């Protein structure tokens, strides 16, 4: 920004270029006078949003509040500092389970969410059989709470129980947590709870977690922002493609894993497990997103989205200026490609906290960096570029660290502004895995999904309410 120019920002002395929004007749009149123009493809916002939009747009705090909130988000420098059990690090007590998305009760929970909770009951030995687990859960003996309420995020069902090990990600004194990624196939996060699933989870608690803890402590804090920035330039978008980031993490930690002081066979298992799972880094990208988004919370007057999350039934968002309140609506079924002979009828509605990536400028928002991902929607590379470009319309900033090479290293569109979502009707684009609707089936596909438009309108109403009646 240069010096403020006297005389209406240079209007009277400089060459005139006009931004036009509205009737084409006036733009044509300008064109006939050889006046350079930047036309806006303006479309009316959803009916009924005018008053709330005017109230929020007219809030004199908003511009500064948004600058402050998104500034905090962008300034975060997430580092992996430790790996510890959830019971210890979150103070999670036996019988308490965290889950993805906005809060939900058992009776409204979807198949994969129920499956994951059943699996966690079995893992924690709170039930001997799935039937017993289901009965206890249905009876309301267990405490369910949203991951987001505990500085935590979880992919898909996102179920966290005390004996699971967690990545601890720090930005200064702020912390955020995410469980360790189980890999592909039949896994708890997709609602599978068979013996293999439980067995793998126990191995993760007994070997993987402790080895990673020793390695991370030996290594010292791992700069996740640097890995993410590199991965973006290597074709990841950090939601549906984490292949480069996982590889970079492996490279970063391999020597320290080797020196973790565990039997050689265990160390080999650990490296084989991480190396064999392209999505291992996803959970770190999510924790990094969470610690960044949390930095932007609770700025009065800010219309910045600080959380988007789905529990398999509802899609919920939280906004900086409205505190911890959730705005929810029924989650949609993603549109994508299906594994094997699965089809849309096998799909569960959208689920998981992994939308924290889109909330913080990666995932679908960084699609242009990961052309391979666009083919999930049957599109081509130009569609990926268009998707990322479209997201600049609804975001407040361009990420200074996370850059997209093909867009001339432009920063990823970061910081969703609900006023822009409502004004343009452009919804955030989310890359996601698709869970089977029946508990235990696992992943059935992957694709794209949009949040329901109502949640942004509802959040806007609440923000307007705070402006009009503070």
């Amino acid at each position, binding site marked *: 920004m240069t010096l403020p120019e006297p005389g209406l*920002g240079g209007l009277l002395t400089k*060459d*005139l270029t006009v931004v*036009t929004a509205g009737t084409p007749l006036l733009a044509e009149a300008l064109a006939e006078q050889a006046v350079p123009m*930047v036309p806006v493809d303006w479309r009316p916002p959803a009916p009924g949003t005018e008053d709330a939009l005017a109230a929020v747009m007219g809030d004199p705090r908003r511009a500064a509040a948004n600058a402050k909130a998104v500034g905090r988000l962008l300034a975060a420098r997430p580092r992996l500092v430790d790996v510890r059990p959830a019971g210890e690090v979150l103070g999670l007590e036996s019988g308490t389970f965290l889950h993805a998305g906005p809060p939900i009760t058992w009776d409204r929970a979807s198949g994969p969410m129920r499956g994951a909770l059943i699996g966690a009951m079995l893992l924690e030995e709170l039930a001997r059989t799935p039937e017993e687990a289901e009965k206890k859960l249905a009876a309301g003996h267990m405490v369910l709470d949203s991951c987001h309420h505990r500085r935590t995020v979880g992919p898909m069902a996102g179920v966290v129980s005390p004996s699971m090990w967690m990545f601890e990600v720090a930005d200064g004194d702020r912390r955020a947590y995410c469980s360790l990624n189980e890999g592909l196939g039949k896994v708890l996060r997709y609602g599978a709870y068979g013996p293999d699933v439980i067995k793998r989870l126990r191995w993760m608690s007994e070997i993987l977690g402790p080895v990673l803890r020793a390695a991370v402590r030996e290594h010292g804090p791992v700069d996740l922002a640097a890995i993410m920035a590199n991965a973006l330039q290597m074709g990841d978008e950090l939601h549906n493609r984490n292949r480069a980031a996982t590889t970079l993490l492996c490279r970063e930690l391999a020597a320290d894993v080797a020196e973790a002081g565990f039997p050689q066979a265990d160390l080999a298992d650990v490296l084989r497990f991480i190396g064999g799972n392209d999505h291992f880094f996803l959970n770190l990208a999510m924790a990094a997103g969470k610690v960044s988004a949390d930095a932007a919370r609770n700025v009065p007057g800010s219309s910045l989205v600080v959380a988007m999350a789905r529990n398999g039934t509802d899609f919920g968002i939280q906004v900086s200026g409205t505190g911890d309140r959730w705005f929810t609506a029924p989650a949609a079924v993603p549109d994508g490609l299906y594994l094997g002979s699965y089809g849309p009828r096998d799909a569960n509605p959208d689920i998981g906290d992994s939308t924290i990536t889109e909330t913080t400028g990666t995932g679908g928002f960084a699609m242009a960096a990961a052309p391979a991902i666009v083919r999930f929607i049957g599109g081509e590379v130009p569609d990926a570029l268009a998707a990322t470009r479209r997201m600049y319309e609804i975001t407040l900033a361009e990420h200074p660290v996370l850059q997209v090479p093909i867009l001339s290293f432009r920063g990823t569109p970061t910081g969703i502004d609900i006023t822009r979502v409502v004004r343009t009707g452009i919804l955030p684009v989310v890359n996601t895995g698709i869970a089977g609707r029946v508990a235990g089936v696992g992943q059935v596909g992957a694709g794209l999904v949009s949040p329901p438009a109502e949640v942004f309108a509802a959040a806007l109403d609440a923000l307007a309410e705070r402006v009009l009646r503070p």
Partner: protein
Amino acid sequence: MSEPKGRRVGWTEESGERGTSERATRQADVSDRHEAERGALSETFVEVRPGLYRDSITLMRISRGLSEHDGVQDALTAMATGLNLDLLGQLGFTAPPDAGPNDLVVAIRAADEMALGTARDLLDSLLAETPAAAGLQDAEAPARTIGAAAARAAGGPAPPRLALVSVPGPHAFAEAMDALESGLNVMIFSDNVPVEQEIALKDAAAGRGLIVMGPDCGTAVVGGAGLGFANAVRPGPVGIVAASGTGAQQVMCLLDAAGVGVSHTLGVGGRDLSAEVSGRSTLQALAALGADPATELIVVVSKPPAPRVAGLIREAARRLTTPIVFAVLGDDGDVPGRAGDLTAAVAEVLSELGVPVPDWPCWPAPRPQRPRAGALRGLFAGGTLCAEALLIAADALGTVHSNLPGWTPGTTGHLMIDFGDDRLTQGRAHPMIDPSLRLDRLADELADPECAVVLLDVVLGHGAEPDPAARMAPLIGAAGDTAVVVSLCGTPHDPQGRDRQAEALRDAGAAVFASNAAAARHAVSLVEA
């Protein structure tokens, strides 16, 4: 391609029809699929293609392409990893024993051999397909908000400094505020913007050293560029602050006729000088033009301001070193530099500048127009031109009815009708764009034996209809005894060409005047007392 290794069981039957009904057939198949599976009568094909690698997304696309194919019940195309071979087993295929993770495994189950055969052809073509060379089309879609458009253009060679907002009134606030936050001045052409929003926008603008022109601002000229309805006038020393669009156009055009150019015309919106809005934009415009070295004299064109606002304006004017002329219609003498009508105000400007006042252009009617008894009917597109004519007519003729605010409407006797009135523009464009309503009325008046004189304004310039005389002249030509007087507001450089328009209207029988006041006086003189 070598004959693939495969396993075939089951029986063969003619498959469903092809062609245009394919999609519908496939959808029917989806619902019937489980039934078919229960029947267990199907063709199965499993093949390993050693060393053929495709990425997982390509393979998922192929799987989808195959399973959407007519008659196909299950299809899987995947690298033969352990996990995928398990999946193959679950789908009821027999996994080939010799397949490893670097091999491609393809499995298809179809209703019959025909379907299987076509599915395999499809498979081959899908596997052979290379992504279309779509290229990186760099065409960026237009921005969807003013803020996004401003941000895109900010780094360019000519960064925008003004946003022109003409979205429906209820939506104008958000776009205008966005523009201000992006550092742009705003002209709001839209009407129906609540006054409290107008005040909020103008305060936000003042805090940023910017101006909001409008809402309901029809005319501005910035550095020679006309915005909204504006005439092509030469650059020059006179700056105009206008609460009235057609008033500003009249002043610009008369100045142009006198050979004097305009530096800028800043519209402020019709409500700016009301007690509520309190001249916020007028003060901003005065300060900006006062500081503009290219502006040697400022004209303020408006209706009489609210008394308290008049005081503010007077005080602001006193602080400027640039001289100010007020062109205030129906002025009560509360502001300095008063002028009786717009033409007189322009004469005052010219004398301030030391420029002789010319004979204002006029094109006398081909046949002399003589006074006769009857009514004067003024049919106007420009509200301020209507108001000016009304004041002149009322002064000379006594009672005149009008739909202008503060006057009594009527249907008989002397009438002055503003067709730009919001109530007459609902559901249609402004009469400067769409003349139909006014032309219909013109025909009615010319047929009315009570009507002695019709007074019309024709406003030219950017934004106005391309050839107003084309539809008006034939009506005038058929006028009979009724005198037609036209106030023509335009310049020789306007897209419509002032002189061409004047000649067409004159040739049709009208008396044409560049000065609206002169036109009104001439029309009044044609009414016999």
